[in-house]
């Protein structure tokens, strides 16, 4: 298949997927009881007012008394033009809230993720090239425990030990701390560690599984017969062929696992990133903010998926993998 044709098809699919997901979201919001209107109705009822009236008022303010197709067009247009409306709780455009929050999320997620990928790949490759050794056993067991460890509980346990009992590290995040400072690291170290452990286990397992396929590949034997040393051999002939599928998995993983972990971690350590914003929006029923903070991971996932597929076709010299195990 022609690569250009493939890539353009892939881009079209991403656009289409975005469209479908937005439509679906709109549909859900339209047919379901609006949590925020329900809340207004509830408080009106408790204060002796008319709940129906309160509900309608909220609907009116938000333009929900218009026919659905008008609302739909409005919704789609505003979504695509990044005109995401105002947050009810912050009384400012949602975009501003997001822009203020995201550096914290980046600082929280990126370092441990990179560290987890590097360490996870290294341990995974070690495991697969030393299959059945003690090191492999320890590595795979560690991964197994890591995967089963509830992150939020682990975070609390760390906090209990290091912040509450030992008093080495601060309990709550402090926004007044200089962003680029060593002091900041003291605040970030536990959240980093939780995200790192959350990610490393799966990276390790993927790396082990993917490279295991090549440990006994015929070309590995050819390479060994050339007189290559084991390090070069492992890097070039076992790790490198696995790298392309690994990148694919990792991108999917980043969005799926790491964003979810980050949300929980931000809530626990009160780091004012996107996750905490999202959480507070959910609790306070700030629908515009909820919508955007949930859509961000979704769009990152769609774009990530697209990039990963494109990268795959461009990086992989093989037209197909069929010959691999023939």
């Amino acid at each position: 298949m022609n690569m250009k044709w493939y890539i353009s098809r892939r881009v079209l699919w991403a656009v289409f997927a975005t469209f479908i997901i937005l439509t679906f979201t709109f549909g859900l919001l339209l047919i379901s009881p609006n949590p925020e209107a329900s809340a207004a109705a509830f408080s009106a009822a408790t204060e002796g007012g008319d709940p129906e009236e309160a509900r309608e008022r909220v609907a009116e303010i938000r333009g929900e008394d218009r026919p659905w197709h008008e609302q739909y067009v409005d919704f789609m247009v505003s979504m695509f033009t990044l005109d995401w409306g105002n947050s009810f709780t912050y009384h400012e455009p949602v975009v501003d809230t997001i822009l203020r929050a995201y550096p914290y999320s980046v600082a929280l997620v990126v370092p441990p993720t990179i560290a987890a990928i590097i360490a996870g790949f290294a341990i995974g490759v070690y495991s697969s090239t030393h299959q059945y050794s003690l090191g492999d056993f320890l590595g795979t067991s560690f991964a197994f425990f890591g995967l089963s460890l509830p992150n939020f509980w682990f975070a609390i346990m760390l906090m209990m030990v290091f912040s509450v009992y030992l008093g080495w590290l601060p309990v709550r995040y402090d926004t007044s701390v200089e962003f680029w400072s060593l002091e900041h690291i003291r605040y970030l170290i536990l959240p980093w560690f939780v995200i790192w452990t959350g990610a490393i286990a799966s990276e390790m397992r993927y790396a082990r599984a993917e490279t295991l396929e090549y440990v006994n590949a015929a070309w590995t034997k050819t390479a060994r017969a050339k007189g290559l040393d084991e390090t070069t051999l492992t890097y070039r002939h076992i790790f490198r062929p696995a790298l392309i599928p690994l990148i694919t998995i990792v991108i999917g993983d980043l969005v799926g696992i790491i964003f979810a972990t980050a949300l929980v971690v931000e809530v626990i350590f009160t780091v004012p990133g996107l996750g905490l914003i999202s959480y507070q929006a959910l609790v306070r029923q700030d629908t515009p903010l909820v919508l955007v903070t949930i859509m961000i991971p979704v769009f990152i996932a769609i774009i990530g998926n697209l990039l990963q597929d494109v990268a795959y076709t461009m990086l992989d010299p093989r037209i197909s993998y069929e010959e691999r195990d023939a």
Partner: protein
Amino acid sequence: MTDTEPLLQVRNLETQFHTDEGIVRAVDGVSFDVYPGETVCIVGESGSGKTVTIESITRILQMPPGEIVGGEVIFDGIDLTTASEKEIRRIRGDRISHVFQNPQGSLNPVYTVGAQIREAIQANRDVGKKAAREQAIELLDEVGIPEAGARIDDYPHEFSGGMRQRVVIAIALAGEPDLLLADEPTTALDVTIEAQIIDLLLRLQEERDMAIVFVTHDLGVVAEIADRVVVMYASKVMEQGHVHEIFDRPAHPYTRALLDCLPGPDGVTPIEGTLPNPLDHPDGCRFAARCEYAIEPCFVGEHPSLLPADGDEDHLVSCLLYRDGHDESVIDREPRRADPFAVGDDT
């Protein structure tokens, strides 16, 4: 040939695999020699331990589960079974090279063939990238790839099976080895390509004066290329000797039976039965269950050791009937074909 020193001496090699079912004795006391510049063919049924023997020599066998548990492999005065990783790495590629059965899988699909040949050159010689590339092109040219300069940057999947095997041979030649271990290098190819690859190997052998150990099922090929033949069965050597002795006066009943498998005037006579289970080799002669000459002593004790047939030190056979006190003449040693060496020509 006996007056020069052997290039490679395999002595009582024993290689095992540790599996869930138990210990697989894949090579169980195999000995043979390879002299400089000659071609030794190893023949035997599938599963008889040929590949494991070959791969034990340079220890490229998968270890674990494989393990060399006994014997010696003497190359250039060093015992390769106990040599350090470093020593053996210097020998791999540089002194002893391999060509494998499966040309599809033998090349890494994510690198160009040029990169893979260069890697072999640079693993053994201290040359720059550019010089290595030049050499790689020369090598590709030498193994008969047309327009080598243009094809060097292609990926393996852009080559046909036969061409890929040529690339693998080029890689094997990169370190100018003294010994080439070729494990069924033509089995995966069709007949015309097979003939070309064999011609290529013979030509290269002549030009470079290397010894070749060639593993094959195809007795026709053996007749065409071998100087000496090693016949393996159930992890043991049954018979070894000069190719003419093996074909003209086969001593071992198994060799006899193998030759009967060749299409001859009486048609094909396949060997009845199957190879014994390497997890649990039977007592006595390993071939006894299928041997038409078997006598009672064949079923007890150890497998008979290799002894000269006809008093000829170069022609060894492991069969009780060649011991004193037995009558070897029961074995009909005349070849059934008029000219076994014609076989190679009509393939």
